[in-house]
């Protein structure tokens, strides 16, 4: 239920969680601290140049590999507003929905630095430069409910009546 406008960081296929946050930095779960090392090995300029609201665009199988929730936490800590990819690895997908990082499954043909406008209500991504539009399907109803509840912790609290 949101609109995002942001600058694109473009990645390819099979971006694994070791790339997003290498294992040597897994000694904290704090999003801001993790963000200082996001993509440290493959895009060393990312932590210093990322700006609040930026959008990550990947190819297929984004977030593959380990179950480390530190990966979506690092991206949230870096201020990433949403991740757009052709497909997502399943644990990364779960983790992101559970902690409130919006994921959009859509194949988008843009380069680094492009500006995208993402409208999750209507399922539309607009490439602000070219004017090209891409459609995407909404989350399944259950996951939307969970996301709208503010993530899994709030959903479980509500469900357990605490």
């Amino acid at each position, binding site marked *: 239920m949101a609109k995002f406008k942001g600058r694109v960081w473009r990645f390819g296929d*099979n971006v*694994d969680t*070791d*790339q997003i946050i*290498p*294992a*040597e930095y*897994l*000694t*904290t*779960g704090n999003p801001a601290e993790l963000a200082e090392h996001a993509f440290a*090995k*493959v895009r060393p300029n990312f932590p210093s140049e990322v700006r609040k609201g930026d959008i990550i665009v990947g190819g*297929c*199988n984004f977030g*593959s*590999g*380990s*179950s*480390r*929730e*530190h990966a979506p936490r690092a991206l949230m800590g870096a201020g990433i507003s949403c991740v757009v990819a052709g*497909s997502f*690895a*399943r*644990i990364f997908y*779960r*983790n992101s929905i*559970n*902690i409130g990082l919006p994921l959009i499954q859509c194949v988008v043909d843009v380069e680094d630095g492009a500006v995208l406008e993402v409208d999750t209500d209507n399922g539309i991504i607009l490439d602000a430069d070219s004017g090209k539009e891409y459609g995407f399907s909404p989350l*399944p109803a*259950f*996951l939307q409910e*969970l996301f709208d509840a503010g*993530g*899994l*912790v709030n959903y*479980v*609290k509500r*469900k*357990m009546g*605490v």
Partner: protein
Amino acid sequence: MSRTISEKILNGDAGEIVEREVDYVMVNDVTGVPAFEALEEIGTPPILEKIVVIEDHYVPNKDIASAMQAKRLRDYVRKYNIKHYYPVEKGGVCHQLMIEEGFAAPGRLIIGADSHTCSYGALGAFATGVGSTEAGAAMASGEIWFRVPGTQKITVEGTLPKFVMGKDIILTLIGDIGVDGSLYAAHEFYGSAIRALNLSDRITISNMAIEAGGKAGIIPPDDKVFSYLDNRVIGSYKPVYADEGAQYADTFEYDAGSLVPMVAKPFLPSNTSPASELGGTAVDQAYLGSCTNGRIEDLRVAAQILKGRRVHRDTRMIVVPATRDVYMRALDEGLIKAFIEAGAYISGQTCGACLGGYMGVLAEGERCVSSTNRNFIGRMGHKDSEVYLASPATVAASAVTGHITDPNDLD
């Protein structure tokens, strides 16, 4: 209505989202603290009998940051009086320990905040990796949501050639279908070659389902599993088998006799070649360990190859028994002595260098042949280091020659 094993354990049809009660929820020293934080945020008492806490990734503490993290985990363990708690000296690599300690069993539904939780599929459980927040939520509520996966049926018939192990079967499959070939799907394995495998090789196969993007890698349980669980399993269990006429999303068939020792080159587990074709690839390190291949059966195969031979002078070999039990058995069987005599280094039970933690981290430009499961960029160290995934037999043969070697080619 005919169902697959996953559909039966999750009690739903492929594609459906369900909320189900889990039998166990496991966390380790990397994922545990954020899980307990989620539990505290929810604010209800944890369901103690379902929770298993295992230290393995960065313990014994590798630096101050990991020491602080492990201490926080232990503080939570004490605060809640967690009864299934395994400090590293009593345990080892979490997945092997979950199996040894009798938590994993046929028909059970188990989650773990570690992606290789899918290993327990080798015993006929539906087991899958989750994140920390949901592990914490499951500690509080006992349940979690699942999207019921479609199932891919893989059949391997015939007799495996000498030195072809479970690792070679799963690397061959991942090479064929790709690292997202099983995205959101479960595997079910059948065939005479699978039935003939020991439990250890089956665990290797289930362990790497995630490397194809899979959610679970399930092998229908048989007498080998039941007898392993005798005097070991906690509580009772009920094996689950697929119904006649269950619907499979895909089917794959292999002739075991045509399989060869395989290696996955950097930087994807799907980037496979027969070991025999990589003879020119020199290795600085040969690593034997991990939840994939750090069991006693793996150590036996490697020690057999090393017997009467020596590790090559330009290669260092590191052996890390997965658990305390594996270590003690290796001591009793004389394997540790054999490794040391051959020139290998032995470490206590830990995840070690599998994830680039410590105990064998790679320098810039170094290359490692490894019995682990991931060869991503920088997985075991410097971003310009390389990991070649292989079976324990291929790791041992390569340690002897100093370059990647099909164990059948050793003289």
